């Protein structure tokens, strides 16, 4: 045991000595939280639009003014012909063109249906939809204000945004970033470290030492467990204090779940390194098998319900999916052990599965 502790200590110092890696290890979550918190938003502000006003009347000017005063749009260019629309879109600066046909005012004031065309550059599909929705709503509000009366039999829709009334993005990305960073640090770091020792031939030296094989693996893994745990806590603190995420549930439960998830990530790392002794392959495998699928298939960014059926099935083997759900349930909804029991069980089973596989691989490796 004493020998083992000394070994763990040595591994620790080894990691702490590499300042650059440490800096990134702890810098990465910081930067990600900041970026997600403050830089990424799907909110539309001052989108560049162009106006093609063939009517040039009071109504068209007032509608244009209303569009601009909303803060969503700014006029980048005034066009004079329909042909110019394609040309300007190709430069990629403007996102939307509002076209008023000649006679717009005449039609409008004489009770005919007056037409406005909103042409959006849908190569950025999301933005296109939001912009046309905003513009339509603004134009509609203009016509109601001109009409000046409330429609009869009006149904009022009162929408309550439960759990996140201010619709903060942080509620989604803090659990997501935390999951990503924990996976990255734990699984990638361990798989690459162990593969490195094997590649350099230093693993054999360790294997003939009086430490058992499992002590060696554990010794390599424990420092990363500690580092990841600290990292997880840092992200939680940033989330709660900087981004004002609620902490409605049991903190102890959350920390225990975090430890379980780190343990799972580490066992995946050990598993990968039991398959290969090339750092390059270990790294690439960690990336390809874990990283991108975690971002895309875990429900972190893209909703799982909208995926094709096949991918929904695949998403069930992505550990991150369960952990993200657990974190949201505990932190935001504040529900307890019973609600997260099933997800916890899945994570634990996955961890056992990977440990079992690694044991088998390592044994055959030695035989």
């Amino acid at each position: 045991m004493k020998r083992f502790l000394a070994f763990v200590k040595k591994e620790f110092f080894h990691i702490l000595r590499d300042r650059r890696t440490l800096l990134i290890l702890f810098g990465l979550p910081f930067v990600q939280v900041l970026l997600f918190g403050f830089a990424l938003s799907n909110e539309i502000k001052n989108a560049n639009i162009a106006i093609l006003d063939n009517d040039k009347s009071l109504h068209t000017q007032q509608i244009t003014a209303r569009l601009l005063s909303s803060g969503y749009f700014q006029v980048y260019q005034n066009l004079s012909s329909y042909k110019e629309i394609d040309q300007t879109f190709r430069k990629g600066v403007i996102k939307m063109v509002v076209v008023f046909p000649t006679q717009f005012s005449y039609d409008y004031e004489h009770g005919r249906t007056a037409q406005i065309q909103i042409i959006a550059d849908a190569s950025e599909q999301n933005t296109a939809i939001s912009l046309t929705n905003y513009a339509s709503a603004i134009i509609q509000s203009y016509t109601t204000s001109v009409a000046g009366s409330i429609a009869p039999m009006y149904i009022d829709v009162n929408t309550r945004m439960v759990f996140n009334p201010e619709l903060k993005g942080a509620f989604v990305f803090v659990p997501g970033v935390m999951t990503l960073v924990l996976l990255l640090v734990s699984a990638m770091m361990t798989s690459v470290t162990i593969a490195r020792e094997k590649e350099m031939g230093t693993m054999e030296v360790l294997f003939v030492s009086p430490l058992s094989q499992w002590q060696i693996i554990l010794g390599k893994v424990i420092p990363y467990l500690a580092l990841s745990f600290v990292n997880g806590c840092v992200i939680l603190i940033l989330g709660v204090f900087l981004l004002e995420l609620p902490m409605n549930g049991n903190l102890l439960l959350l920390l225990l779940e975090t430890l379980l998830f780190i343990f799972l990530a580490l066992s995946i790392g050990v598993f990968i390194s039991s398959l290969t002794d090339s750092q390059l392959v270990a790294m690439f495998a960690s990336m390809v098998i874990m990283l991108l699928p975690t971002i895309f298939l875990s429900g972190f960014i893209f909703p799982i319900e909208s995926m094709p059926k096949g991918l929904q099935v695949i998403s069930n083997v992505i550990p991150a999916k369960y952990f993200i759900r657990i974190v949201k349930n505990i932190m935001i909804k504040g529900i307890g052990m019973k609600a997260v029991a099933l997800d916890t069980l899945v994570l634990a089973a996955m961890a056992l599965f990977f440990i079992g596989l690694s044991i088998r691989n390592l044994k055959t490796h030695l035989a």
Partner: protein
Amino acid sequence: MRKILFIVEKEFKQIFRNVVLLRMMMIAPVMQLVLLSLAANFEVKNLKIAVVDQDHSTFSRRLVSKFQYIDNFKLTGFTPSYKLAEEQLLLDKVDIVLAIPAHFERDLYRDNRSGVQLMVNAIDGSKAGIASGYAATIIQDFNGDIRIENVPMRKGEVQQVDIVNQYWYNPRLEYRTFMVPGILFELLLLVGGLIAALNIVREKEMGTMEQLNVTPIQKHEFILGKLIPFVVIGLVQFTLGLIVAKFIFRVPMEGSLLLLYVFALLFLILCVGLGLLISTISDTMQQAMFVAFFMLVLFILLSGLFSPTENMPQWAQWLDTINPLKYIIEVARNTMLKGSTFADVRSHFFALLAIALAINGLAIWRYRKTV
């Protein structure tokens, strides 16, 4: 110049010898392109909706039935009380609850107005926004229906504007048309940048670097010799990706293919150069991996793939002026979907060229033959 060829030959031999890695380098990006493009969908579908109907009137039943026939919603059932509905929200059994109060129909007839309540699980704010938008539209539709049935209107009395929305370049609003070009270049950056980042540092770890450093090879010969093989491999990956984009996802190719290849080449030179720069300043593969990873995550998040760059705060937009992924994704969308010509994307070309030259220059300068 001749020496560069020897390095290129040697790199290719090493790459082709590492079968596992080669396979991963060729197959993984294509698979990922397929899978991720299928997954990358912000569309909100299959929303589970529960109804608390306390009115039990014709109107309330008609309103509920409107939700049943819309693809976006899946009616999970009726819940007798608010409390139970809230609990279902809590346990993720439903995404949205429609509550119709008692006297809903009576109020509409008598007071000319009434209200319904929507409770939306808003942990994912953007999804909640879209979901409540859909629901509100359905309710408004219903509102229009009953208004036409019950309130007689005289023609020509109301001033009306007909708003026609047109979605150019992607009329069916396909997510994939929009995501695939972006994901394709993201993968090129990821694979090219990472493999290159690990390359030189691997020679350092293996000790072969020292042997090279006592030869009279020149710095630029060395960096170029390393650059060329990975750029060539990147172009192969790019071609595979384009085939997938074209034949699996039916992404249009409006612009010039040649122009796209010119940009891809420039972009790859940049990515691989970045990887090599990271490699020259790192001591171990682990370090290189992490530095590379850090930069790639930054580039990807700020690239406009997940959220439009125009919406970012000023400081993030400043950062973005050196983000190669941002430029190339814009170029890819513009040429593939809109048919932009070189003149349209000229500024992007020079920005990428400047970054590529700067990074490769730095890589050559930072590569030290002496300690």
